[in-house]
């Protein structure tokens, strides 16, 4: 795992939750299978007194243990002084619960019944890929769906009401900004309904799923017998069961059950209450407050401070479905670029059929199950791609020729199977060839493809295949060898004197795509790290200017609010004075500063786009290696 991935998650936890949570995560990432005792040890002073110290007291010897887990943000941290073991235990339990909520921990039980915590690296990867998943969701389902996925990814698990309230609020704020900047105010759009519809679509398409909630532990009685300010005795006095015993994780039988009418009504009511009367909602959202719906709880609920209908039912993003959809998006885009939009819609319809039939937990399979011609026709008719039915057979033949699908039989229009493995292999080879073309030129691609199709060729045989002169071919071959795109095997000198060339050693060249892809994957991670570093460095360099812009923006917003209040009160003098102040405030940012901000914005957008492009390639290579390992 690249170092930057852990750093990103650590900083995310530090910013959005607490430094202690980040410290616990960082400790477990470096010490797999840690127990509660081990984690507690990190926050204990040699003298036995458990305390955290003010940020300026960094000379304390025990601070070194905590220092290494906080690295860059040390000067900004301030700790409370905790004097009891109970407080420390409660703090660590809360951190572990938070990490469990984000699915960042994997639990296992030792032989002595102690519970061990390890990092769920797959989920770390999901969080690192969050921008790519958000881009995918926005492309396929729209902005509202993107906001829902964003909330669920960064919160781990959320209740229906909390999630929709936040998303509706963000949509309303965006609409306010759009309407205030536009010349003519657009008609009010119901943000609550948009959020709810997006949520329902995501649940129907299995982008999100119902989860049991991770309940934070109840306050535990001080069992150390030391009283306040007491010393820690032995490690054995802490029971690991205290964490898991009170943090119960429930399974949901029907994770993709659609939203019930009662849930929809409760959600709309909650949105109305949280957004207030300022935002106009559609009449559909208005319900008599006397009728409180009963939400069917599918799991055992645990009494806690939250509303009963939320306690056992939360939602989280379904990372597996996001991966599958991303894979499908890659295949349809490849088909569109090679065969055209119509063929791509046919392939998308076939992928939708496969998606409906795939169950939760289904592993990445090399081929789909068989799809009948009639099913494909029905799916095209149901989707918006009805015009792709004309010439369907031709599109299917084109897709079969290019290796995306395979015709199983010709009866009743034919039966087809999507060849995921073959398509991914082909795309990977094309991607590697594209990298070679960028680095070494077109002739190097000839050499690479020739060796891919016919392995174990000598240099002389290769020259006649690719029609490149001896010297050029030799140079290309060696550059490909150095960069790891091509590999070499030596046939040692023959001992047979009847051989016409007994003193010659033969060198046979071949392509090992798996090995090449692994090397490229490592390189892609490195390039992504560099782009991220550059982006963060640019933000850090221009931090002062960005803060200034934010302050000016807030100042202008406040002045706008005051101006509109003065106008509505009929106070023209105050309004004129405020308008003058606003004009002066708008000049706080000088033209060179504006230009610098514009350049920074372009640069950040380009770098972020580059990171997404690299992430897509990384995903493709990981898919390829996954299929290759299944084959082996």
């Amino acid at each position, binding site marked *: 795992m690249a170092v930057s991935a852990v750093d990103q998650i650590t900083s995310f936890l530090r910013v959005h939750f607490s430094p202690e949570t980040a410290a616990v995560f960082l400790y477990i990432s470096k010490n797999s299978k840690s127990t509660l005792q081990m984690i507690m040890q990190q926050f204990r002073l040699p003298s036995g007194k458990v305390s955290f110290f003010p940020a300026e007291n960094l000379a304390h010897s025990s601070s070194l243990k905590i220092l290494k887990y906080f690295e860059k943000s040390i000067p900004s941290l301030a700790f409370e002084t905790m004097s009891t073991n109970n407080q420390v235990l409660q703090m660590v339990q809360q951190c572990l619960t938070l990490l469990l909520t984000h699915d960042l921990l994997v639990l296992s039980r030792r032989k002595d019944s102690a519970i061990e915590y390890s990092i769920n690296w797959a989920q770390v990867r999901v969080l690192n890929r969050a921008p790519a998943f958000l881009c995918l969701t926005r492309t396929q389902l729209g902005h509202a769906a993107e906001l829902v996925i964003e909330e669920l990814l960064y919160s781990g698990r959320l209740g229906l009401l909390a999630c929709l309230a936040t998303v509706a609020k963000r949509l309303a704020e965006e609409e306010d900004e759009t309407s205030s900047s536009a010349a003519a105010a657009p008609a009010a759009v119901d943000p609550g309904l948009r959020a709810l519809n997006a949520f329902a679509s995501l649940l129907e398409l299995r982008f999100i799923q119902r989860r049991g909630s991770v309940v934070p532990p109840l306050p535990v009685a001080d069992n150390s017998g030391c009283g306040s300010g007491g010393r820690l005795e032995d490690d054995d006095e802490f029971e690991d069961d205290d964490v898991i015993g009170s943090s119960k994780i429930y399974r949901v039988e029907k994770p993709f059950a659609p939203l019930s009418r009662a849930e929809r009504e409760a959600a709309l009511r909650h949105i109305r209450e949280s957004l207030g009367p300022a935002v106009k909602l559609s009449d559909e959202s208005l319900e008599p407050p006397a009728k409180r719906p009963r939400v069917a709880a599918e799991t055992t609920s645990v009494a806690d401070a939250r509303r009963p209908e939320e306690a056992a039912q939360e939602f989280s993003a379904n990372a597996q479905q996001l991966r599958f959809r991303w894979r499908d998006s890659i295949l349809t885009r490849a088909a569109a670029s090679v065969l055209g939009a119509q063929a791509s819609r046919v392939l998308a319809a076939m992928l939708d059929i496969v998606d409906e039939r795939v169950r939760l937990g289904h592993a990445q399979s090399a081929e789909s199950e068989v799809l009948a011609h009639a099913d494909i026709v029905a799916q095209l008719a149901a989707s918006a791609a009805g015009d792709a039915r004309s010439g369907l057979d031709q599109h299917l033949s084109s897709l079969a020729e290019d290796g995306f699908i395979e015709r199983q039989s010709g009866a009743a229009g034919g039966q087809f199977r999507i060849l995921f493995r073959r398509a991914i292999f082909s795309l990977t080879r094309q991607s590697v060839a594209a*990298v070679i073309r960028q680095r070494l030129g077109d002739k190097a*691609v000839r050499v690479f493809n020739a060796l891919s199709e016919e392995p174990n060729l000598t240099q002389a045989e290769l020259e006649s295949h690719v029609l490149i002169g001896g010297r050029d071919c030799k140079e290309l071959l060696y550059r490909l060898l150095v960069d790891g795109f091509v590999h070499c095997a030596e046939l040692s000198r023959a001992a047979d004197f009847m051989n016409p060339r007994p003193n010659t050693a033969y060198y046979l060249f071949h392509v090992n795509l798996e090995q090449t892809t692994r090397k490229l994957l490592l390189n892609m991670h490195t390039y992504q790290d560099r782009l991220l570093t550059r982006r963060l460095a640019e933000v850090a360099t221009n931090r002062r200017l960005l803060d200034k812009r934010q302050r000016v923006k807030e100042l202008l917003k406040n002045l706008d609010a005051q101006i509109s209040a003065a106008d509505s009160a009929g106070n023209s003098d105050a309004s004129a004075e405020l308008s003058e102040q606003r004009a002066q405030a708008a000049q706080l940012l000088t033209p060179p500063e504006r230009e610098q901000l514009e350049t920074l914005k372009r640069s950040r957008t380009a770098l972020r786009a580059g990171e997404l492009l690299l992430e897509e390639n990384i995903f493709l290579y990981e898919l390829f290696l996954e299929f290759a390992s299944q084959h082996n």
Partner: protein
Amino acid sequence: IKLKMSTATVKPDPDDIQTRLLNLAGQLPAGINQAALRSHLSDLPMDRIIQCINQLTQSGKLEVLQTANRELLWRLRDASADRRLDGLDTKEVMVYEQLRAFGNKGASAQQLQSRSAMPQREIGKCLNSLEAKKLVKIVRPVGHAKKKIFMLFELEPDASLQAGTFFSGEGFDQEFVDVLCQQCTLYLRRKAEAAATSAATTSASATLEEVQQFIGQSRVSTVALSLDDIRRVLRALTLEGVVETRPGPYAGAGSSCLYRLARSQLPASGDFGAVRVPCVSCPVAPDCRIGGEISPIGCVYLTDWAKGQF
């Protein structure tokens, strides 16, 4: 009077020995080796046998061969066999038979020596004699002007030895091959554009014969290019990703597939984006370190790329 019986061995009649040798050769069509001679003609002295074998070889009734184990074999010569070998001595016949085994790839003097274990000078003399009698010729392989390859006079040298269409006096003609590639690409691009504008009445694919005809009409080559030459050029373009092939049920007799411009070469086709990131093709990428002299933070390539994006 006592008669003394002569103890001298009666010398066998040479004609008898030759007859017996010919009969034995007829019984062993694969050839007679020394072991067969000892077993079948054990009653005869070996020197007489060898003498008769030489006479039969010179008269053309037997031919001498050498196996991979350097064992000599004598075989009954076919009546329709090459009469040109009459008058050659044994060593010359051996060298000739060795060259016949090498076929149209020929052999150098060193290869002949390692095969036959004859001294280098003897082989040289034999080769000179055979060359003078127009039974053997010398071929200079492409790229090795000083090397001599010997082969039978009537054989055509193998393609690996001779220059071929894509070779000039100085070796492989890369410029000529590049021009041919450009012309083929141009023809297929015109076909694709014509197909795009004429609404499916014109095919974007071309057969091998059509491409050959176009190349011939374009007069880029002073020599006529065969179908095989055109196929090799199109194959190289297929490997480069410029051209793609499709099975052609209605293709001409000389080819079994159709060629067209690869769809990735057509405009409005997407690529697989990571190659757009400058780090992928950066010449100093291996030396780039965060905090080093070459670092992404001050990288001019990234700066120019970010500007060029918009």
